[in-house]
């Protein structure tokens, strides 16, 4: 019951998602053929994971945002392809450990700057945004490097089961686990009104840092997924995903002032962004109009979510009388 109430916010985007799946199916047979599902999943995964990465910081409120999501993914991709593998650290353990380590480090850096040094999130993460971009180019001045076979396996099917499904499932399980803890309540509280959370004894700085740690790890995972999909490194692979992640969070019904929403909506919205684009490709519409369409859909989604929010509030006040 509460479980459902906590997820109502994602209703619209889920409906839209289903709608676009159907539209895609109508647009081309290729979409229905199970042979292509893996490709689709590989294409959608980064949109979904970066969107989820963006959610924690935005939920944590006070202008919380993480601009470094895209570049961090890019940095991890470069690190794996151009540093780890060439040095022979291409076994699952070292690569996954490194990925998570980098994610945690980045999350800690952002989190401390924001929660302890108290630099506004958009500025702190703008700093890391630029820095990571620079580091990536330093490590990997041009596309190259390689991914070990086991990693590329994530982007392939194993007996009709896409490896990417495993990654997403893993994230889902981890989040569902985390939701059962007090973290979600604390996060929502801090995002809703940090002063209230603080005075009632919540460790606000701690919660914020955790939110950015979560973001860092997920973004790093996106980097891992890039490496699996591309089978190599490319210094410009991460860039576009900061904006798409923010757009996705907005689409996903997460209140951008913090306090309401979750990973589900963001992930669904990420997939939706991807499906919009595939639909345009399948329907042979010029990319130029895709840009316009993205904008329009984003505006409409915002408007709808806001309308829903207003209705909810009106109900609240109706009860208040």
């Amino acid at each position: 019951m509460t479980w459902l109430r906590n997820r109502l916010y994602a209703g619209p985007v889920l409906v839209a998602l289903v709608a676009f799946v159907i539209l895609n199916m109508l647009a081309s047979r290729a979409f229905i053929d199970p042979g292509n599902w893996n490709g689709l999943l590989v294409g959608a995964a980064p949109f979904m994971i970066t969107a989820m990465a963006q959610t924690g910081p935005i939920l944590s409120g006070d202008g919380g945002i993480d601009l470094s999501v895209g570049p961090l993914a890019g940095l991890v991709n470069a690190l794996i392809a151009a540093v780890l593998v060439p040095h022979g650290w291409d076994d699952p353990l070292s690569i996954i450990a490194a990925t998570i380590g980098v994610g945690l480090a980045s999350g800690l850096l952002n989190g401390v700057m924001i929660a302890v040094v108290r630099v506004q999130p958009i500025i702190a993460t703008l700093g890391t945004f630029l820095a990571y971009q620079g580091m990536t180019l330093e490590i990997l001045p041009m596309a190259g490097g390689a991914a070990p076979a086991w990693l590329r396996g994530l982007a392939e099917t194993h007996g009709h089961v896409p490896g990417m499904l495993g990654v997403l499932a893993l994230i889902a399980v981890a989040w569902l686990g985390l939701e059962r803890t007090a973290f979600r309540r604390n996060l929502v509280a801090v995002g809703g009104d940090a002063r209230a959370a603080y005075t009632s004894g919540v460790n606000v700085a701690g919660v914020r840092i955790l939110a950015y740690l979560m973001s860092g790890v997920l973004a790093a995972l996106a980097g891992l997924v890039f490496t699996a999909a591309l089978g190599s490194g490319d210094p410009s692979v991460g860039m576009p995903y900061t904006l798409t992640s923010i757009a996705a969070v907005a689409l996903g019904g997460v209140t951008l002032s913090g306090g309401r929403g979750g990973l589900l909506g963001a992930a669904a919205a990420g997939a939706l962004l991807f499906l919009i684009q595939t639909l345009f490709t399948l329907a042979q519409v010029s990319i130029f109009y895709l840009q316009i369409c993205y904008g329009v859909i984003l505006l409409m989604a915002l408007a709808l979510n806001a309308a829903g929010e207003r209705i909810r509030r009106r109900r609240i006040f109706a009860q208040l009388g």
Partner: protein
Amino acid sequence: MHLLRRVAGHGMPFALAVALFFVINLVIPGYANLNSLLSLLLLASLLGLAAIGQTLTILIGGFDMSIPAVIGLANVLTALLYGAGVPIWTAAVVIFAIAAVIGFLNGFAARYLRLNPLVVTLAMGSIVLGAIWAGTHGEVAGSVPNWLVQTVSVIGRTGPIPLPGVVVLWIVVIAGVLLLERRSVLGRWIFAAGANPRAAELAGVPMLGVWITVYVLSAVLAALTGILLAGFSGAADPSVGAPYLVTTVAAVVVGGTPLTGGRGGYGRTVAGCFVVTELSTLLVGLGLDQAGQQMCLGFLIVALVAIYGREAPLSLRL
């Protein structure tokens, strides 16, 4: 402590702008010459004009991420229209009109529909850019008048004044914006609107009007920058505005205007524009490549803001 931060915050950006200039002169022998100074002024003034909208929208508690797109639009339209024989002034009027519409939509969506300004303007930007591409397919023929090129040229002069027209224009505009902020009804309303929207509404501040006016101003000034950039590069390019997404925000925050609205002002942004331009100049001067430049710029922005742009701790916000 409160007071201390306020004082530091006020002086800091300006001191920094001056200090940086001397630093550049120190580390880069032979920097001190008229041309260097002029190109610094030129680049700062282009950024400064683009950053006005960013400052004002941030003051009312918003954001304008559509500035780059509007710059691109104006840039392209200038070349197209003038190339097609439309007199430049007519072209300008048309462009400003279109920009005004975009600004209106931004303000309306952000305030009346209460949509998140950051995302609204991002979306608007993507619509505008898409429209440019759809309209031009990236092929922008056309031309710009020679005097416009001169206006945005380092060696350009303004009548008797030994400064490029764009710099003189900027100086005039600075005066205008400062007057608007300090000595006009709209100005006071802008600060009230940013400081406490709910209270402003109850106090009878015409919030919707203020927001729309500010966003229209922002778009129109972005368009002006776009027109000038057409003169600067001598040709049109839809993506000409791209660098201004990060740099305008950087200029505002480095100037010390908090993103929370109601505090700060354009005076600080002016200092911020110099700091940002000087920083990137310095980094180029030190021979850093793209990678190094980006890393340093990233850390410097954070470091500067951490010095004087920090938010009050929760305990003092109780």
